[in-house]
């Protein structure tokens, strides 16, 4: 049997980097034209959370953006937030319910980003989908893990409402393993399941004194805040850990009135997993950072936290994650006087609710036994994804998992092998062949728009500025991707390609020099060859070819002349 050929999808770096493969280039290009609403539509094709991701995504797209080679990456997240906010402001169009094409019901356990995305994708395909959520509100970590100043609850609600609009049913307050079980659901006629309950438990420090009053894990702390439970914040708070959750917890504590909030992190600043911007903002809020320190024990007094004893660390060789491993320095113990300790060193899955077959019996292996590519488990029809499977990760990764799950479930329900959906590799392409050429682009916008990690008020104000600046910002996009990426509906550009007359071509290479996207290269016969994947049809080559050997397929010289002569005859 012949090996099926892999489909190669050529994507610009931003889209390739995005776990959800959001068509960045397309919506940025729509923003260039001021078509904000159309831009949101484009985003929604791949991502149900434009506004949420516009706020809190760690934006791998920006990290991948080729524009960094010129100055700074395009503020993709900012633009996304902008268009989503504009849409909401102007009144979001109600999502049209998608007619049900299939009868197989799908149950999604957990209304976090992974579950909701899977529901959204499946609903779009035409499946009846029900999402079961333990908490009173859907949204998972988006709703309960991220403080309001970073992600407003109404934003989350709005985007989830859209998912509901298109026909996803969400049942909240239903706890898996308790209120419902797989068997029960099967009996109810559900044919496939996606378990995405996330990692809800804060990881323990495993030091003495962890059960003292005043020790609360960051997830619990943040969830309590989100559910409106009364919270007592200490005067002096120590947050343990260097991730985004730690930052959220520290800032929340500060905002809730703590006099002093310190963050203790066992590595150095460089190794912090938190977004640098978040760290900056935390510092701005007055949070103090102590690096290379690890808690040894929590000292209590009267059952309450009094201080935390730490030991200093030094960094040795990098471990398998590439980060340098911290090693304790003997006799460097010291104490911090605190009355509250918030461990934020990670989350773990609450395994109690899960069917036991899913759990991995071998220690040290994955928690859950599943195929990380198709998300299948050993139970037919049951798929897992999100933090539950991978351990705590980001929203966008969860979205990616949700999309993946939807495809696998669809294939499964259609009696096909979920592996089929893997016959695709993504190749990152960018036309930028010579950064020197691009560097010459004058920098008209001294400072690209700032990342919108501002206070709520600031952000609102910023939004107004952003509208003006957004189009400029969008113009900074180099449009790395193949021209099919651009769905802006520009007739002249779309699909036009340069064609080389090989007999006429002498190989002078002027075309390759002038081609802005590096789509022309000489072949081994010394004749120019157009890479149609890259050619954007600008026609510069045709306008300069010294041998008149290049023509544009659509907008040929003859076509231009025909237009002109008819126009002038009039």
């Amino acid at each position, binding site marked *: 049997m012949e090996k099926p050929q892999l489909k190669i999808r050529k994507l610009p770096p931003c889209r390739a980097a995005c776990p959800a493969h959001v068509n960045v280039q397309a919506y940025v290009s729509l923003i260039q034209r*001021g078509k904000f609403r159309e831009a949101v539509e484009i985003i929604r094709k791949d991502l149900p959370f434009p506004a949420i991701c516009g706020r809190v995504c760690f934006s791998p797209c920006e990290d991948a953006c080729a524009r960094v080679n010129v100055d700074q990456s395009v503020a993709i997240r900012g633009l996304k937030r902008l268009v989503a906010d504009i849409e909401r402001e102007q009144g979001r169009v109600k999502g049209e319910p998608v007619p049900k094409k299939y009868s197989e019901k799908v149950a999604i356990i957990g209304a976090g980003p992974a579950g909701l995305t899977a529901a959204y994708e499946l609903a779009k395909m035409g499946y009846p989908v029900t999402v079961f959520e333990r908490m009173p509100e859907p949204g998972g970590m988006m709703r309960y893990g991220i403080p309001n100043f970073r992600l407003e609850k109404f934003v989350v609600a709005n985007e989830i409402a859209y998912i509901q609009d298109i026909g996803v049913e969400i049942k909240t307050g239903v706890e898996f393993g308790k209120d419902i079980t797989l068997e029960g659901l099967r009996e109810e006629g559900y044919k496939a399941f996606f378990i995405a309950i996330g990692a809800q438990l804060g990881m323990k420090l495993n030091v003495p004194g962890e059960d003292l009053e005043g020790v609360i894990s960051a997830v619990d702390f943040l969830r309590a805040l989100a559910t409106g439970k009364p919270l007592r914040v200490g005067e002096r708070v120590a947050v343990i850990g260097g991730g985004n959750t730690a930052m959220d917890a520290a800032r929340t504590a500060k905002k809730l009135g703590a006099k002093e909030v310190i963050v203790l992190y066992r590595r150095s600043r460089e190794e912090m997993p938190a977004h640098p911007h978040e760290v900056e903002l935390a510092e701005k809020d007055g949070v103090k950072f102590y690096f290379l320190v690890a808690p040894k024990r929590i000292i209590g007094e009267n059952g309450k936290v009094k201080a935390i004893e730490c030991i200093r660390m030094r960094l040795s060789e990098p471990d398998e994650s590439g980060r340098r491993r911290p090693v304790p320095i003997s006799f460097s113990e010291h104490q911090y006087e605190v009355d509250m300790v918030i461990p934020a060193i990670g989350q773990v899955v609450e395994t109690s609710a899960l069917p036991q077959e899913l759990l991995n019996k071998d220690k040290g292996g994955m928690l859950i036994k599943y195929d990380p590519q198709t998300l299948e488990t050993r139970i037919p029809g049951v798929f897992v994804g999100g933090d539950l499977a991978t351990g705590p990760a980001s929203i966008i990764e969860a979205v990616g998992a949700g999309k993946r799950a939807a495809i696998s479930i669809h294939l499964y329900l259609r009696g096909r092998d979920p592996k089929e959906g893997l016959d695709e590799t993504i190749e990152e392409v960018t036309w930028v062949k010579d950064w020197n050429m691009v560097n010459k682009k004058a920098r008209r916008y001294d400072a690209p728009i700032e990342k919108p990690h501002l206070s709520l008020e600031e952000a609102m104000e910023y939004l107004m500025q952003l509208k003006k600046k957004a189009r400029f910002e969008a113009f900074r996009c180099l449009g790395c991707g193949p021209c099919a990426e651009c769905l802006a509906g520009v007739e002249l550009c779309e699909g036009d390609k340069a064609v080389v007359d090989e007999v006429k071509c002498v190989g002078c290479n002027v*075309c390759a020099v002038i081609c802005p996207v590096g789509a022309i290269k000489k072949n081994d016969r010394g004749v120019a060859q157009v890479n149609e994947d890259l050619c954007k049809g*600008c026609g510069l080559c045709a*306008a300069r070819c010294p041998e008149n050997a290049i023509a544009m397929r659509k907008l040929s010289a003859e076509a231009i002349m025909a237009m002109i002569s008819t126009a002038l005859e009039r």
Partner: protein
Amino acid sequence: MEMEAEPPKIVCFMCNWVFCGEELQVPYNFNVFRVPCIGRMDPVLILETFANGADGVMLVGCKPADCHFVDGNLHAERAVKMLKKLLNLAGLGHGRLKIILFSPLEDGNFDKYAKEFSEEIWVLGSSPLKNAELAPKITANLAAAKNAASAFRLRVLLGREEELTELENAYGERISEKDYDALLDDIVNAEFVRYKIHYLTRDKPLSVRQLAEMLGLKPSIVLRHITNMRRKGMISMYRVEGNTPLYKALEVH
């Protein structure tokens, strides 16, 4: 003096990206053609537009850093610079061609610019092609200019101008803008004259002196061009009349 009743015919080539698809307000004598990038405008096409009777041609491209194709707009500027030289040589004058790099976000309404150019062309009057007396000469000149603009060496230099003047040449040197301009000037001139000679001698064999008179050049310069044209197979000595050799154009592709 009688006022011309006909408004000037203006052809405007506009980058597709400049207006982001918005509707434009332009004077009624403007014929706007959208192109994917203003750099698409082959110099020959612009000359062809004049040959088709346009009184003025305007190119509208994106602001320098906005070009969707890095610097197609700057390539267009270079082409215009060269075309202005050719238009001067051809007797149309450089004022009939204009390029603006424009941003609707920064520069406001295009209308203003369109009207301004229209006014400029009103002042210049209609294309000399429409003047029965001048027409044959201008037609010949435009034909020569078109051929010059499609000449290999001119296009190579135009195509590589950016590379050679802003990056570096094969020897790792950068050619100054001024030197390059001078070189380009020479070549534009030479190619125009040679193709003019070629055009003129296509139907009728002519002598160096006759050509010199027609071109307003010194006979020695014309002869030099003819030696180079012979070298390139553009012309040959047809016959000798008295002591005067007459030259006739050879077919070139």
